[in-house]
């Protein structure tokens, strides 16, 4: 079976700086795949390259039989790739419901009311704040809103950039639990970039380790968790 997302030999530059030096990643339909790595390894760059901003200078990105390497962000998103960009980026002056409405842009065919109902089931707190403007939500609630907004369009692939960033451990666990629920109940494929390697590797089916713009390790979540190199570099040497 061909993977839903196939990144092969992708090289991305910021000016003369080569941020990705030939990355190969595959995500199969229905999987949760996580990408871990230290600061500056190129994790966010890979997510953004998949979304076409910046574009890959070499290599190919295929999504569900489409070559999306050269497409523009909004066209990629309309194919069924939803992303929550780094830093949540909710619309602060618009209400929770209006933010969710913006999520439906990518797929006008969805039943909005139904999507909102599902979003409020996943995140009841958003339902209570539906008429509140996005900027008045707490950090955790904003993250929930960003995820809910991305899910409204019923994407086939959900790209998440550090959903646990800046959240209290309890909230981060809650977010990860919801991601698992989304994956299991609706079969949404998830590609997750995380600093919080322990939780991300426990959640995922498979994982990649990115260092200096190259994939250095890959395997199932439990394999990577048990790997001494991963433990030393990303888990604070917890296993030694």
């Amino acid at each position, binding site marked *: 079976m061909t993977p839903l997302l196939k990144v092969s030999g992708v090289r991305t530059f910021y000016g003369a700086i080569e941020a990705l030096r030939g990355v190969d990643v595959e995500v199969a339909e229905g999987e949760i795949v996580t990408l871990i790595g230290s600061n500056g390894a190129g994790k966010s760059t890979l997510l953004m390259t998949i979304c076409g901003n910046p574009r890959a200078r070499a290599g190919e990105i295929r999504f569900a039989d489409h070559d999306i390497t050269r497409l523009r962000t*909004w066209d990629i*998103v309309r194919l069924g790739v*939803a992303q929550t960009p780094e830093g949540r980026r909710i619309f602060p002056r*618009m209400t929770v419901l*209006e933010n969710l*409405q*913006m999520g439906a842009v990518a797929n006008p065919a969805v039943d909005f009311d139904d999507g909102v109902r599902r979003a409020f089931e996943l995140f009841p707190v958003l339902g209570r704040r539906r008429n509140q*403007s996005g900027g008045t939500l707490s950090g955790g609630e904003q993250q929930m809103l960003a995820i809910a907004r991305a899910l409204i369009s019923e994407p086939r692939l959900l790209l998440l950039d550090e959903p646990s960033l800046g959240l209290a451990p309890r909230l981060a666990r809650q977010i990860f639990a919801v991601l698992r629920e989304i994956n299991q109940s609706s079969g949404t494929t998830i590609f997750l970039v995380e600093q919080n390697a322990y939780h991300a590797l426990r959640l995922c089916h498979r994982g990649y380790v990115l260092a200096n713009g190259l994939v250095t390790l890959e395997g199932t979540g439990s394999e990577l968790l048990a790997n001494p190199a991963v433990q030393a570099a990303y888990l604070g040497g917890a296993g030694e």
Partner: protein
Amino acid sequence: MNSPHAASLRDAALVAGIAGILAFPFVGLLLTTEGTAPTLSTRFPEFAGAVVVIFFGRLGISAARRGHGLLPLVLGLAMAAGGAFSLVVEATGLGASGTAIWHAFVPGTFLSTVACAGGIAIAGLAGRNYLMQGRQPAERTPLPMGQLLLWLGIALAGFAILLPLLPGVDRRLIDVATLVLTYVMLGWGLNIVVGLAGLLDLGYVAFYAVGAYSYALLSVTFGWSFWVCLPVAGALAALFGILLGFPVLRLRGDYLAIVTLGFGEMIRIILLNWYDFTNGPDGITNIGRPSFFGLPFASKPEQGTESFHTFFGVAYDPVHRLIFMYYLILALAFVTNAFTLRIRRLPIGRAWEALREDEIACRSLGVNPRNTKLSAFAIGAMFAGFAGSFFATRQGFVSPESFTFIESAILVAIVVLGGMGSQIGVAVAAIILVGLPEYFRELQEYRMLAFGMGMVLIMLWRPGGLLTHREPTIRTRPAPA
């Protein structure tokens, strides 16, 4: 002497003293030219009046701040009554005839108006204190802004509709109201670009000019009627909006503002120099006037035709056309407003607002920023084109002089002061920025001073604009689980 009353008195005296020092050269002294020699005369009554008003006004404000009801209410009402009285005295010429003693104590229109408005504001503060009395802070629920603004809007609209029929309304007032409404409409059009889509456009007057010249040229060259030209002018202006939009798609903030400013000047300079086409600085004259559903507003209709007054069997009165013009621009403004209110609830309007908030998030949600920005530029420009047509037909004459940068600047000021995106705020700001200066012509020299002061005060107290309330476009849906 440390009671709060003494402190208030000291504070009011201090403020009045400072105001007195500042006001003396401006208000107390008057330089007039008699013959060739400038002479310095004094205006002590006016000066003293100003200081007294400031003293009691400050006293009223600080009393209201401390939660008193009665004192500020009395002070406020007294100030309002005094200001209104002197306005009436001046308007009816009561002071000029006979009793000179009156005239000496009646201050100028400006001071009277300030005293009157300030008095009403202080009385309002006092009234609020009365309403709040005996309530715990927790019970002070925030005012339902959306509803209040809705009622304010309905009241303003009703007032605007009835204005020409009110007693005591003269030609000058209708003329000024027509001018204000033109700016309200332009402000609402620019509000789409600046307030909703967040694209700072300093060259909006260009589209106004395109609309005006489109109508002027079509009317003079082909003799087309106003109603045929109106959509054509709107479409041409929208086309120019797209023309401007393309090169500035990647720009935002200051850079966008500079390019749009340049675009506005380019259009004006082209109009000025393309003599064969636009008649250059001489402008275009004899532009057709609109008719009342085919009935012209002419004193002597051409042989075999009817005009407005013969058809309705009333005596000819030039005010008919003024009133018709007033209702015409009122209708155009209402259309602009209704359009904006409606489109905010549609995906494209929502995308404009989202684009203002965060362009990157928009891209990642599948919004095409190019089409979204171009549509905002085009639709905003279209309404400027309509307003431009109206301007041309009202004046009967257009020249590049009417489309200078200061017009764009005033329009941006209207939108920003009104509170970006707020429809009522724009209308109120247009009344303040365009209507008041027309009524205080005698203070024209100080207009820019007042402008600057107003801007500084707004930025200090209400950095988001007069009305920052944003009405959500969607209410509770689906029903709470």
